[in-house]
């Protein structure tokens, strides 16, 4: 083989290896869940965002993992993601349908609601038959009552919301077993909570990480692996847009 041919072969082989590396990095490492963009749906300085927690994620590759879902603002379909975008300087009215059972907090400090309007969350419990009257709650004692299933926390904005859970053993044994929990698959009437709160986005764009502070990674050391450390399950990203 001539020298030019050898050089050409070497260059092509090198470029093939580099391209393969870039593909792996982008496809496997850099892949992100889809972002639900709520910005076009804001009006009057407010936007409504709806999330759901489930005890499993039967739509994903990890059916045993607890997960959040976000409702698409246009189609109203539940999307398996934890990334969403909202406008800056806007009141975000969040509704979380909590279909998971309770787990005590690792740090009881996260049982206190912070960063929301009035530093409270509004909770209604559904026991499988009827909803309770909504009540405002500012602090949960998850050790005494096992009253929290997950948290929705944005440390960068000072927001911490314990997601209230159904509390009795009987209700925990009748949790929604398919995700997302909808009328279409007959699981919407499983015991759950409806948690509502509002927080204000900052006056300026930015990206904020949010997460769950309940160690809910079943099967992982200290409960912090798996869904706790994987985008699309128990941690995500809030994009504040112009």
């Amino acid at each position, binding site marked *: 083989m001539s020298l030019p041919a050898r050089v050409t072969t070497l260059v092509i082989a090198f470029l093939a290896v580099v391209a393969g590396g870039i593909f792996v990095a982008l496809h496997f490492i850099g892949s992100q869940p889809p972002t639900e963009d709520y910005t076009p749906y804001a009006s009057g300085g407010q936007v409504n965002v709806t999330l759901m927690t489930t005890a499993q994620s039967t739509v994903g590759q990890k059916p045993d993992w607890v997960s959040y879902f976000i409702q698409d603002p246009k189609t109203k379909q539940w999307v398996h993601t934890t990334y969403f975008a909202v406008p800056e300087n806007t009141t975000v009215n969040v509704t979380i349908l909590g279909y998971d059972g*309770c787990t005590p907090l690792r740090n009881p400090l996260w049982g206190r609601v912070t960063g929301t309007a009035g530093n409270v969350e509004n909770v209604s419990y559904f026991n499988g038959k009827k909803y309770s009257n909504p009540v405002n709650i500012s*602090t949960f004692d998850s050790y005494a009552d096992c009253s929290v299933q997950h948290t929705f926390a944005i440390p960068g904005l000072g927001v911490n919301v314990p997601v209230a859970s159904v509390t009795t*053993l009987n209700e925990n044994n009748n949790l929604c077993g398919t995700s997302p929990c909808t009328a279409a698959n007959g699981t919407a009437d499983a015991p759950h909570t409806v948690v509502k709160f509002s927080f204000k986005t900052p006056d300026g764009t930015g990206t904020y990480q949010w997460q769950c502070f309940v160690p*809910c990674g079943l099967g*992982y050391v200290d409960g912090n692996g798996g869904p706790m450390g994987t985008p699309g399950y128990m941690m995500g990203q809030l994009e504040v847009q112009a």
Partner: protein
Amino acid sequence: MTEPSGVSGDAPGPAPEAGGRRDAVWLITLWIILSVVGCVLVYVVWGPHLPPGDASSSASSQQFDFRILGTIATPVVVGVLLYFGWALAFWRQKPGDETDAAPIHGNARLAVTWITVTGAIVLFLAAFGTYELITPAGAGAGQGPQPIWKPAGTVTSSETSWVPGGKNILQVQVIGQQWAWTYRYPQFGGFETTQLELPVNEPVQFNVTSLDVIHSFWAYQLGVKADANPGINNVAYTTPTSTGTFVVRCAELCGIWHGAMFNYGKVVTSGQFMIWARLTRTQLASVTRLLPPYALTYDPTDISDLGKVNTELGLTGAGGGYYNPADPEQP
């Protein structure tokens, strides 16, 4: 017969020894002048701006170390760069000149001088570095659960109360968890908060621990860095010397949101600190009563006041749980 080194066949020129001596004089003269100027610039001009600043006793100590080390390194850097530049400018190979350079023979005086000077520098740096790791009070680093070097004149006479100006040192517990820092003030009822506030000119004892994996508490502008290990109390000391804000980061890769594990602390006057501490204690009273009793470490698997539902479900504050290796349903 071998030609004299450094002299090419037909090219008459200056005797190599004369040229070499002249270059040496120039190089040494320039090196001394540039080194003196450089040392002054590094210590006096650049030094006060070196990280991490002088916002605390430990930060000032570290900045002083950097100034000393930078000043000592300056003549070395100047010498290398000067010799490199001189060689490029004046010792370039002339076209057609393929002779070897002059051989270097042993020079006992030069060797002894070299070994003596470099040895003295290394030994000084070893002694200086060791001393500076000790003062002041461990130089802001974590010293483990039983610290050896403590701020002079301070004692831990009370873990339940603190007033400014006394000898009783202010205790702040730093708790790391994926992915946030929280701070507990045992001398103010044991409240826990996400805000780190400190009084100026008062020695502080950080008790650093973790609730899950290994983190590292790094209060950059304060010059404090201590690993946060679960089940271990790691003690670090500092004394903030000026008011303002500082950044707290995690310096140990601790998971996917490690990069977002930071917040800001504040150094205020003693009066402002007391107002903040008393107010926060009152505001957080409802959640403080839910916290485990103040301790130097915490075990989330050992909760004394679990309710009936938790007990019957077999839950603790640890969550997670382990799959039996034989369990076919592995995560």
